[in-house]
């Protein structure tokens, strides 16, 4: 491998580094996370800690084995962020081993085996989520109605320890389906969309987030707030979130107009499940998304389309993780075909011809 001189111009540098990027993403995740922890109480906090800690420790061990600088790389925060994102997509009262297995899958298999940060083809958190969903469908779809901290139903800390680390009999008491899961079941059972969603789905509640679902995806508003922060700080650009949500919304709306009894409307799709979290925090993952604006538009649109297809026509009620992973696989191809136009050349790479000086003297 070529090593260039350590002394390298330019001798000025933007005050930007990987740690700062990851830090801003975590900051942006903070409101939705705190709300989720409040909504689902102590067991959610325990699960969150287990997941993130496992991710960081796994990364440290892998780096050590690979002989890479441990402290420096850990400081970039990418492992913590992966664990964090994974926790956001887990059922809040899932048992501890779900978090541990998930984080190990994410860091060891999906990230370090590929060569560490920047080398992975797939988003590590999504790889872990999909693997968990396929291997352990029951605990991965055991959602519950929110029981905010300090409310009557909320488990106290000791009960929480039992839920997360012990056998958890309490879960049945409050278990519920997520909105998406409920609709899926109802439609399969022959009900119409309006019947299924009546009393179960309220756009305003979804906006605020007081609904059953994964730890961090319930509050549309707080996720949007975080997304706005990322856009404002230029950590991400608008291309992927906008194209992903727009494509999901447009397809859902068209299908709803065609047959409202069988297909839920666009707003429902955008607000439910991990659509928003996925659009702002997961599909935008720098490492696994295309590098050009045009490529990102295509990538986002593909994600939106796939989310709809998976939610509507497969046996999985939620499709964000699958959709993003499928599009991750297309990223190299997209990057290959949608390059920017080089200055002074046409799209095929041929030098431009002289507009007004066809022949030179």
């Amino acid at each position: 491998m070529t090593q260039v001189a350590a002394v390298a111009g330019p001798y000025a540098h933007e005050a930007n580094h990987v740690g700062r990027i990851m830090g801003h993403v975590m900051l942006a995740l903070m409101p939705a996370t705190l709300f989720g922890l409040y909504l689902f109480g102590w067991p959610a906090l325990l699960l969150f800690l287990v997941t993130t800690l496992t991710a960081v420790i796994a990364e440290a061990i892998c780096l050590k084995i690979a002989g890479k600088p441990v402290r420096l790389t850990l400081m970039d925060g990418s492992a913590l962020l992966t664990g964090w994102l994974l926790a956001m997509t887990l059922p809040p009262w899932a048992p501890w081993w779900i978090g541990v297995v998930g984080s190990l899958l994410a860091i060891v298999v999906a990230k370090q085996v590929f060569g560490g940060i920047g080398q992975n083809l797939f988003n590590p958190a999504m790889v872990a989520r999909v693997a968990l969903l396929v291997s352990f469908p029951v605990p991965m779809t055991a959602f519950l109605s929110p029981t905010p901290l300090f409310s009557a139903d909320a488990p106290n800390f000791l009960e929480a320890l039992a839920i997360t680390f012990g056998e958890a009999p309490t879960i049945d008491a409050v278990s519920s389906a997520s909105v998406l899961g409920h609709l899926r079941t109802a439609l399969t059972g022959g009900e119409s969309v309006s019947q299924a969603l009546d009393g179960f789905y309220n756009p305003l509640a979804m906006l605020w987030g007081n609904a059953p679902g994964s730890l961090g995806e319930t509050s549309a508003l707080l996720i949007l707030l975080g997304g706005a922060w990322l856009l404002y700080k230029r950590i991400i650009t608008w291309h992927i979130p906008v194209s992903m949500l727009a494509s999901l919304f447009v397809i859902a709306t068209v299908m709803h107009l065609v047959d409202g009894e069988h297909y839920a409307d666009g707003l429902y799709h955008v607000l439910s499940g991990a659509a928003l979290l996925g659009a702002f925090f997961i599909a935008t993952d720098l490492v696994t998304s295309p590098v050009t604006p045009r490529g990102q538009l295509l990538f986002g649109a593909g994600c939106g389309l796939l989310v709809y297809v998976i939610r509507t026509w497969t046996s999985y009620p939620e499709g964000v993780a699958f959709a993003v992973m499928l599009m991750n696989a297309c990223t190299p191809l997209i990057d290959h075909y949608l390059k920017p136009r080089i200055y002074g050349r046409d799209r095929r790479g041929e030098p431009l011809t002289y507009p007004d000086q066809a022949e030179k003297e």
Partner: protein
Amino acid sequence: MKLFRIRGGVHPDDRKTLSASQPIVTLPMPELLHIPVQQHIGAAAQPAVRRGQIVRKGDLLARNQGAISAPVHAPTSGRIMGIGNFPANHPSGLSVRTITLKPDGEDRWTDKLTPCDDPFALEPAEVAQRVADAGIVGMGGATFPSAVKLNLRDRYRLHTLVINGAECEPYLTCDDRLMQENAAEVIDGIRIMAHALGVSRTLIGIENNKPDAQRLMREAAQAFDGVEVVGLPTRYPMGSEKHLVQTLTGRETPARALTADIGIVVHNVATAYAVHEALRLGYPLVERTVTVSGGAVKNPANLRVLIGTPVSSLLDYCGGTVEEPARMISGGPMMGQPLPSTRVPIVKGSNGVLALTGKETASRPEGACIRCASCVNACPCGLLPLEMAARAKVGDLDGTVKIGLMDCVACGSCSYVCPSNIPLVQYFNYAKGELAARQRSKHKQLETKRLAEQRTARMEEQKRKKREQMEKRKREAAEAKRKKAAAAAQTEANA
């Protein structure tokens, strides 16, 4: 005027306030001047003086060689102390042929100056010739001999002269001050260049962070038709020739072509000032303005400096450094080069001397690429720096070229924004260097082969000649024998 958007670019913290309000001051005469014979792109000049010779300011020190070259003149009067090797103002710090001059302190001009009252009455070729004789090179840092560019009218259909007053590099303010303090002279030089080029339209681009320079230049240009001062958005690399042209005219220079191919020639404001002095006063290029700045410099300044002055003299004049600089740079922080030492001299292309603190250079260890696309968005040339660097890293030079290495203008925008601190430009410069070396060695191989072939041919020729000679001799001998026999027969017969 309508401007055209270019893609990419970055907004470095410009740090110009350090020196922007400092008027240009003439640096006191240093004790010795070290004047390299090559301060331009092209062939080195040939020394025209000997050791011990007394010269006056403006006398020829070294004569240009070949079509792309520039002469070098004495920056002041004094004695030639010697012609030898001296560390160059180049990161390698390698020695180059340098003429050392000891000033006599009188600063007397030579009597060979040829001032001109009305340069516009001269033939364009004559103007270009005088610019060539004055040793003027592109003073924005590129140091391409200016006269060569003024002669392009012979081969291209030119219509516009673009003047680069963008000064988009952070810290540098010498062009800004020059435009403020010598607007009339700069405009005069610009008009002389337009005359030499035979173009009727001149656009002077100045970034919007220099409102005073814009105003004063506009006032100075008012009286003249076809000369327009245009405010440019403050964005690096606005001063890149092809991007400047596109911003001002909307015309994109095709790959592998010159701006002249689309009818436009670009010169720098400092070059225009030198042209004014050369044509009006007959002065050759013996001094220039230099910005001395950076967080480690005590009193940042804009100085008028004789070519050949050691960098240390400039720093001393500015009160030295307040802390040990983390990095000394010749030029701006984006495209400038590290200074090997402060002994090296100021040359025609030096526009800045920077002493930067560790905080200013903000260098961190190189990390892994996280594919954040910052470099892609920053590249003004539409390249994929991350891919080019990845290929250069594994030595795939051809692959690097395939995706646009040769279209890279080495502006450094990509390195500037990379959050993993990957020295991207460095990889590209390395790859370009390797390719050039390969090319050279290929040429060398061809040359060796050609020489070998010539040698074989020569030997064949010699052999052939020898054989002929021998045959001739044989023939002659046979002839002589025959004659002798005939003569003998004759004598016998007679007898």
